[in-house]
């Protein structure tokens, strides 16, 4: 796998007012990395911007991913590009998947979605149904037309409560979680005010029974360095220039490093390598935020460099 893993847009459809759904696949149709509900991928758009999108397709289909993208009126252009320019047949860079919003086992779930926050919850409700859990979804949006995937949720009947704000007002969070017992896990994804409100509504419960994901506009982790950088292998002193077509791992191997790897997707951790100088551009699915910030190791199968030069213990 090279340093510029790409996906091709196979389908682009309107999922709701202001929301498009993309079906993505490898250009060669090959198998994609496995994922679980709550996972997101990084997509690198033509502008070089990287955005995170929750996977909202079917994990039993190993060959396509689905994401849904809301047009953000005040955004920085990523969503406008996806809506206005990205076309079927175009490619995007991708990294991940990563999962900071994993589903924990429970007999009962309450899901709360605000707007585009439905995307990570959509595979979760499917999974809750699959394992026979008791569950309900409260789904709010500005208006009915703005709420994606209403058709797919219809099969769940009255487990799903649609709550368009222009018809029904704010989400009745307090009553929705009122009868949550100690075996009920609450999952919530949506805009900041919704997350604050659900935290208030569940403040009397043990904190681990509320699991939330915040959509941040920040470009987490992966500012792709377009230009080449130099990697120095400290054990031999050999240097190699890593262009965008190569992974650090592959480049190091070409100049004689014996670096063990396995998944080559940044998920297994086998190729962990100490960083002696330089700042790594972490693109793996392993490190926690504080470990990324430490900058003392990287996974060269996927991770790259933020600096001109990176010195590795290889």
């Amino acid at each position, binding site marked *: 796998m090279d340093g510029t893993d790409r996906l091709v847009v196979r389908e682009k459809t309107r999922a709701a007012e202001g929301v498009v759904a993309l079906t993505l696949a490898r250009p060669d149709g090959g*198998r994609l990395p*496995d994922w*679980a*509900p709550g996972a997101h991928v990084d997509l690198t758009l033509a502008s070089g911007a990287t955005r995170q999108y929750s996977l909202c397709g079917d*994990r*039993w*289909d*190993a060959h396509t991913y689905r994401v849904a993208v809301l047009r953000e009126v005040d955004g920085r252009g990523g969503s406008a590009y996806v809506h206005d320019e990205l076309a079927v047949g175009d490619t995007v860079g991708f990294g991940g998947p990563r*999962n900071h919003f*994993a*589903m*924990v*086992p*429970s007999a009962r779930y309450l899901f709360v979605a605000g707007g585009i926050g439905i995307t990570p919850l959509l595979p979760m409700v499917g*999974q809750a149904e*699959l*394992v026979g859990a008791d569950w309900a979804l409260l789904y709010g949006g500005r208006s009915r037309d703005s709420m994606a995937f209403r058709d797919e949720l219809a099969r769940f009947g009255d487990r799903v409560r649609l709550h368009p704000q222009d018809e029904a007002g704010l989400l009745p969070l307090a009553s929705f979680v009122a009868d949550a017992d100690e075996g009920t*896990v609450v999952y919530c994804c949506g805009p900041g005010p919704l997350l604050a409100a659900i935290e208030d509504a569940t403040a009397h419960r043990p904190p*681990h*029974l509320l699991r939330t994901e915040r959509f941040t506009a920040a470009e987490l982790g992966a500012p792709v360095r377009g230009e080449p950088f130099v990697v120095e292998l400290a*054990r031999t002193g050999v240097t190699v220039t890593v262009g965008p077509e190569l992974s650090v791992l592959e480049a190091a*191997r070409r100049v004689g490093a*014996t*670096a*063990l*790897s*396995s*998944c*080559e997707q940044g998920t*297994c*951790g*086998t190729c*962990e390598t100490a960083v002696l100088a330089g700042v790594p551009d972490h693109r793996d699915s*392993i*490190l*926690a935020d504080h*470990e990324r910030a430490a900058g003392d190791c990287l996974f060269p199968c996927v991770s790259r460099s933020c600096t001109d030069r990176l010195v590795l213990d290889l």
Partner: protein
Amino acid sequence: MTTTAPTARPAIPVVDVDPFSHEVLEDPLPMQAALRDAGPVVFLPRYDLYAVARYAEVRAALVDWQRFPSSAGVGMSNFRHETPWRPPSLLLEADPPHHDAPRAVLSAILGPRALRRLTDRWFADAEDLVAGLLDGAGPVVELDGMAALAAAFPLRVFPDAVGLPREGRENLLPYGDHAFNAFGPSNDLVAKGAPRVAELSAWVGAQCAREVLADDGFGAAIWAASDRGEITPAQAPLIVRSLLTAGVDTTVHGLGAVLHGLATHPDAWATLRARPERARVAFDEAVRWQSPVQTFFRTAEVDTPIGGTVVPADRKILMFLGAANRDPRHWADPDRFDLDRDPSGHVGYGMGIHQCVGQHVARLEGAALLTALTRRVERIEPAAAPARHHNNTMRAFASLPLRLHLAG
């Protein structure tokens, strides 16, 4: 062994061999070559089984959890029709979505980040073990590499890391041996273990309880994950059980494999002494070369095409990991134990969502023991022919007589 290509359906090579016979377990390599050469997928009439032995097909089957799930058992027994001998593993014998949470929890606990705190201690423990064998023993030491090193080191560090009490640790190897035999057919190897199954299972089960486990080990970390709701309290003991089942015999025989490789390849030992940082690569090359875990099964979820034929739904398929790891279609000079080779991508730990969750633990054990040996031992050679230990799943040694020439 006869290989025929019948013209009638099914259009699949039929190979009449018993992969679990003592003759094959003693030396599986000729059978593996025959299976690879017979075709991308073969039929084994002895057990009414489909099988893959080439690298490409084994790897493809391993990663395809959608069409080759594990919850019907990863041994010969089909749990959809037969009752398993013990409650199924939440990891090995589970599929998404039930597999997700136990796997995520154990991956974090056994991941390279978490192991960093063990590294110094295990390297020191390995030096200590080696010193105990070599100090004051003269310039040449003969020992059984299995008992003195390959078994001794994991049994010294791993149960402590899990947080097991001292009493009863001698049960770990027989329990694991039986568990790995039980993936095969109900042959004499399974019968041999049967009298102690109840006793050993009860002991292992008792060690999984929270109050039995030390409060700073992998076991306690699993229970702590249940406090955070990441797994249920009912899942915690079964996840501890997975550590105890899969975490000992496998590394013992992985270490046996690398010691055997280094003893029989003096050039490799010289390379490792000059570059001890290659110890992890040496360990993985040994896992490729000997493949301590030789086989696992899957069950076809739907009619699944492989190599021009179809494995029908609900039928078992046997994946020969050891054969894949020596497939000349994928590896150059595959029978050679070669420290200059890059063994990355071998399937000795499996591949995909079920890939060995303890692989980093195993590599750390290997690196610690090999590094300690390179500091003290100039040359290592066989003192006598090794004796194989037969197991339905593992390629193992009963004894590995070694002669160590100590560095001056």
